[in-house]
């Protein structure tokens, strides 16, 4: 008599559902990206409180009265020389003097960085009034970089004319428009379409910032002004070095006038490099 033996039960194989691995990977990546956002949030400087009008004028006065010895000591410093010679008919301003044309925007962090050396350099040839403190955009790279705006400011000089166009405010709303002639200059000399764009009387021009706006991150106008007055500070080497390059380009357009500014050893040396 044959006994029908029960078929041994096969141990069920536990198999992970096919969706588990991809789902786990997507979840892990989402966590990593969330971590990046947290790091970004923690490392983004908050907008520093804007100084009062008096405090702003005090800062401008401090950075536009640096001693000659500091300019000579720093020379080019840590600035990246972006200035290139350009060929065009001499650009003159409303008073017939060589014109320095600036095209930038208030939201732009590179413009924010470059206004510091521009103000220092232009302050050696004339006088600003009505400069207001502001910061670059909160949502762009190098957010909330402390700076000034040229909007509403006036500049007088017996050597040069200065024309500034801030095309957008810090929220990227339209602000000022360049004239058709200025637009042509930008298209001609600023082939990378970058801002800030600065034209020195159609003799020299540059686009971009000569140092990283990162250097100003987390600072206030007052702390940056203090750093600018210390030739050993990284900010001074970058900002005053950039100001010297800008000064050298301006001196080239003013036939080295005024001599008190243009005959300095550092400026003469930088003029040779342009």
């Amino acid at each position, binding site marked *: 008599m044959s006994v029908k033996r029960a078929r041994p039960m096969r141990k069920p194989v536990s198999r992970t559902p*096919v969706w588990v*691995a*991809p789902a786990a*990977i*997507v979840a892990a*990546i989402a966590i*990593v*990206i969330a971590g*990046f*956002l947290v*790091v*970004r949030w923690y*490392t*983004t400087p908050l907008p520093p409180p804007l100084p009062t009008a008096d405090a702003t004028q005090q800062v401008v006065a401090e950075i536009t009265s640096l001693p000659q010895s500091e300019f000579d000591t720093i020379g080019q410093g840590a600035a990246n020389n972006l200035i290139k010679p350009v060929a065009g008919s001499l650009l003159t301003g409303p008073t017939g003097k060589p014109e320095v044309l600036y095209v930038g925007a208030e*939201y732009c962090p590179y413009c924010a960085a470059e206004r510091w050396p521009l103000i220092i350099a232009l302050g050696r040839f004339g006088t600003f009034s009505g400069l207001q403190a502001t910061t670059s955009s909160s*949502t*762009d*790279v190098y*957010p909330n970089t402390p700076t000034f705006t040229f909007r509403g400011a006036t500049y007088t000089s017996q050597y040069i004319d200065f024309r500034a166009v801030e095309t957008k405010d810090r929220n*990227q709303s339209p602000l000022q428009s360049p004239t058709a002639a200025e637009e042509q200059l930008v298209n001609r000399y600023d*082939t*990378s*379409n*970058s801002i800030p764009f600065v034209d020195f009387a159609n003799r020299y021009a540059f686009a971009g910032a000569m140092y990283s706006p990162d250097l100003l991150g987390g600072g206030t106008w007052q702390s940056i002004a203090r750093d600018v007055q210390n030739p050993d500070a990284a900010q001074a080497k970058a900002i005053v070095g950039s100001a010297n390059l800008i000064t050298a380009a301006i001196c080239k357009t003013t036939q080295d006038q005024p001599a008190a500014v243009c005959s300095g050893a550092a400026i003469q040396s930088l003029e040779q490099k342009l």
Partner: protein
Amino acid sequence: MSRVQVAAVAAAVAGVVVSIYLTVLHYAGSPAACPVSGPVNCELVLTSPYAIVAATSIPTSVAGILWFALSALLWTRRVGWTQVAWSAIGMVVVLYLVFIEIVKLGAICLWCTVAHVLVLLIFLIAVTVGGRRQSAY
């Protein structure tokens, strides 16, 4: 080729196309068809120093062309750990690039994100299919 392989090859070919587009933009100096303000800003990302392979003048998108092209080639062969390892390398690079976009630049490039999603897709296919086939042998 299985349907999954066809999907992976299609993703890789799409990645090649996107990378070629970004490379052409780089050399032509033209802006990408993409917003240029706020958190989505292709221009900011593509003109940043990180858009270039370190210590060269080669745009990162060229590396993307090579990676996607080799991926397409690999997926026409028998599926196994090779595809998993290659796509894992791609995924690590993508995470590094996303780190740069979010933490360093504070801006996202839409076209780069399309390429990143394609890498992720290929990686998920590789892990799901490649790892499973290999363990069945």
